[in-house]
């Protein structure tokens, strides 16, 4: 059997797993695993034809079990997601080797298990991305959710609780998908993609509704859509540094990949559009859009109240997931491109932000926003990476986040959905506010006494952060590069493709050319600098030489405002945080507790014979009547 490129990739990934498994003990193992990820990325680039022209590379491995044949293949969609997966894996594991590894091992962390979990995650994600039919999709899906559980649970203590909560959600999602799979199998007779495609046309609306709910809910759990989003923030935040960077960047986007593959490609947006919710004028697509929009707003405003940097970023991860789904669900040329581009952009700046915060934790030992401050003087490079990251996350012009958000807004504008547009903008503004709190509480303000001797993050951690920052800026300047891949993905998935240029998007109703916009922006900065620096040199002043209403500041007084950062806003909005989703989750758990108590009572001191007789009589009566 000839080894196709896909086989090479999967074997390479398997080899990385074996390397991590067997020679993971030594400190050099980290570097070896990183190099192997690099190798995987190269083999993926060899398949670059997929990313530009489309087409399919099938794997020679396919077998039939119990009457179902399983096959694996790669197309533009899987290539695009695989590129992001391997990119973030390479940079995360590079970040993990060297200094971070030593300090993690010193704190009692198990480095071998960490590299093993990362390699397992990458392999299972590649298998999921390469799934050729619904059954291999489900197998890949379960592998990914269990590998994710391993990576989340290895930090012990709070992380294990968060991982436990995740696995219960993931199992519920998995079972919903399994139910959906069974329904599809029963109506179409086979799980091959083309057979299902035909069967979808002939499906009754109620069955299609059931399938949309099952698949949407199942994949939504992994993406952290609204009702199921509670697990994601603590789970991603508690994973050890580079692990959270990797998970935050790509792990929950697997849900979007599956939604694209199943809901968009198989069921087709037009079918979903035709599913009307009775008595209301919204249909399934609007429902998904509104879920996406609420997923943007609520997590973003929850992020604002977080006091731990990692939790703040993890909550934003959920919020940004809403943009991607919104873009994909609006499904016109620009919306689809915006949603897909946002997957790439978000992966870059989320990984950069998590790495920067891990660098701060590495140096100062804490991520608590109320125990940091003024680190810009000691860690300038990390500040710069965090700044670039938050500009991307907030979606402001020079960075790539702006391009994808602009595309999503333009599609909402073209489709004429004012309320969705408004909600998306509220989400963005909320992001800007909470993101500023992040950078202010960590890097700006008064430097604490104990952080006087803090040095810049070591080079093994700084290099991947700088590379990511560079990627963010370059793809911001030339969005054409990722847009090329996005366009080929749109063809494969069946969305209308966008006509993109190197600088941005060309369209009759207003176009965007980032090269000009950024050029003008930096020209403006130049003129501003000229005006500013024309006025001679300014004297650098110590941080305590500050206006304090006449008092003399001394080092022991804490002259920093960081706690309850948006007090004004919280006066009005504070009342709305009622944790209704948390209450919902608690009520489900207490219901199960109560039922299990009833059942145990049934078994504990129950009068067994009475039950036996009553059932026998009941059954006899039922038979006789």
């Amino acid at each position: 059997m000839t080894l196709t490129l896909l086989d090479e990739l999967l074997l390479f990934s398997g080899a990385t797993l074996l390397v991590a498994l067997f020679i993971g003990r030594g400190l050099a193992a980290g570097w070896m695993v990183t190099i192997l990820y690099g190798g995987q990325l190269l083999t993926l680039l060899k398949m670059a034809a997929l990313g530009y022209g489309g087409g399919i590379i099938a794997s020679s491995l396919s077998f039939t079990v119990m009457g179902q044949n399983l096959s694996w293949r790669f197309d533009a969609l899987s290539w695009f997601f695989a590129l992001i997966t391997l990119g973030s894996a390479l940079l995360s594991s590079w970040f993990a080797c060297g200094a971070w590894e030593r300090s993690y091992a010193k704190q009692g962390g198990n480095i071998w298990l960490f590299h093993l979990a990362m390699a397992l995650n990458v392999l299972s994600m590649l298998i999921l991305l390469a799934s050729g039919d619904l059954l291999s999709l489900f197998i890949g899906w379960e592998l990914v959710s269990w590998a994710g559980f391993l990576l989340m649970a290895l930090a012990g203590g709070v992380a294990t609780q968060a991982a436990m909560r995740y696995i219960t959600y993931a199992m519920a999602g998995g079972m919903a998908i399994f139910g959906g799979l069974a329904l599809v199998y029963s109506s179409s007779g086979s799980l091959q993609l083309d057979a299902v495609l035909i069967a979808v046309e002939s499906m009754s609306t109620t069955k299609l509704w059931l399938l949309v709910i099952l698949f949407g809910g199942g994949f939504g759990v992994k993406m952290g859509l609204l009702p199921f989003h509670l697990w994601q923030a603590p789970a991603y935040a508690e994973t050890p540094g580079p692990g959270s960077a990797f998970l935050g960047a790509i792990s929950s986007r697997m849900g979007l990949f599956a939604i694209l593959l199943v809901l968009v490609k198989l069921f087709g947006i037009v079918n979903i559009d035709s599913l009307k919710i009775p008595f209301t004028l919204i249909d399934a697509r609007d429902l998904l859009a509104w879920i996406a929009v609420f997923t943007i707003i609520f997590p973003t405003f929850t992020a604002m109240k977080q006091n731990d940097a990692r939790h703040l970023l993890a909550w934003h991860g959920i919020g940004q997931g809403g943009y991607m789904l919104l873009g994909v669900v609006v499904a016109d040329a620009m919306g689809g491109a915006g949603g897909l581009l946002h997957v790439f952009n978000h992966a870059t700046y989320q990984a950069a932000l998590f790495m920067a915060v891990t660098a701060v934790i590495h140096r100062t030992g804490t991520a608590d926003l109320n125990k940091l401050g003024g680190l810009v003087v000691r860690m300038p490079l990390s500040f710069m990476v965090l700044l670039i990251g938050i500009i991307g996350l907030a979606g402001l012009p020079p960075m790539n986040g702006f391009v994808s958000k602009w595309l999503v807004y333009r599609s909402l504008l073209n489709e004429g959905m004012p309320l969705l547009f408004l909600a998306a903008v509220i989400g963005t503004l909320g992001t800007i506010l909470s993101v500023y709190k992040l950078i202010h509480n960590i890097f700006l303000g008064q430097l604490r006494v104990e952080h006087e001797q803090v040095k810049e993050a070591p080079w093994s951690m700084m290099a991947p952060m700088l590379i990511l920052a560079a990627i963010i800026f370059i793809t911001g300047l030339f969005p054409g590069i990722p847009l090329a891949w996005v366009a080929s993905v749109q063809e494969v998935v069946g969305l209308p493709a966008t006509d993109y240029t190197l600088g941005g998007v060309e369209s009759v109703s207003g176009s965007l050319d980032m090269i000009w916009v950024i050029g003008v922006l930096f020209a403006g900065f130049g003129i501003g600098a000229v005006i500013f620096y024309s006025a001679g040199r300014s004297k650098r002043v110590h941080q305590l030489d500050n206006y304090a209403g006449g008092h003399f500041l001394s080092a022991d007084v804490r002259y920093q405002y960081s706690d309850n950062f948006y007090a004004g806003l919280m006066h009005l909005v504070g009342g709305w945080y009622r944790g209704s989703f948390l209450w919902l989750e608690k009520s489900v758990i207490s219901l199960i507790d109560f039922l299990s108590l009833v059942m145990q009572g049934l078994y504990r001191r129950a009068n067994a014979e009475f039950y036996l007789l009553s059932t026998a009589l009941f059954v006899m009566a039922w038979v006789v009547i």
Partner: protein
Amino acid sequence: MIPALTPELILYATAIGLTTIGLAGVVLSVHLFRMVLSLVIAEAGVNLMLVLAGYRWDAVAPILTSLGEQPAMVDPVPQAMVLTAIVIGVGVQALAVSILIRIRQRYATLDRWEVAERMDADIAATAGTPRDVSQEAPLGERPLPPIPAKRVDPSGSES
């Protein structure tokens, strides 16, 4: 109107009656030994039922007395089965009584609820799990103010 009281119907009625009395005895009684005895009654009832399955009124007991022409005989198979059923029944009851003696020695009572309670306490003790279902400590967070710490547990059975 009572259906015609053919002897066959009476026998069926007694068989089913015996079984129901036995089963009701098991369900209603509290003392373990009484339950075993009512089990005996139930088995007797079912055995009668089994014999009746192959019974014919105008036939004689299925014993080959002479080689020549035989009178109409009753179906011997159920009777053979009843033999084994009775033997099994006796075996089980003997085992039951011997176990009852053991329980009497260990638990000093044969009241079924008491035995069940003691058994649960023992299982929980060997496993080392706290007994969460007890009247003294209601389950779940206490809506009321917490119980004062130093309160002696009346049942004293806490191991």
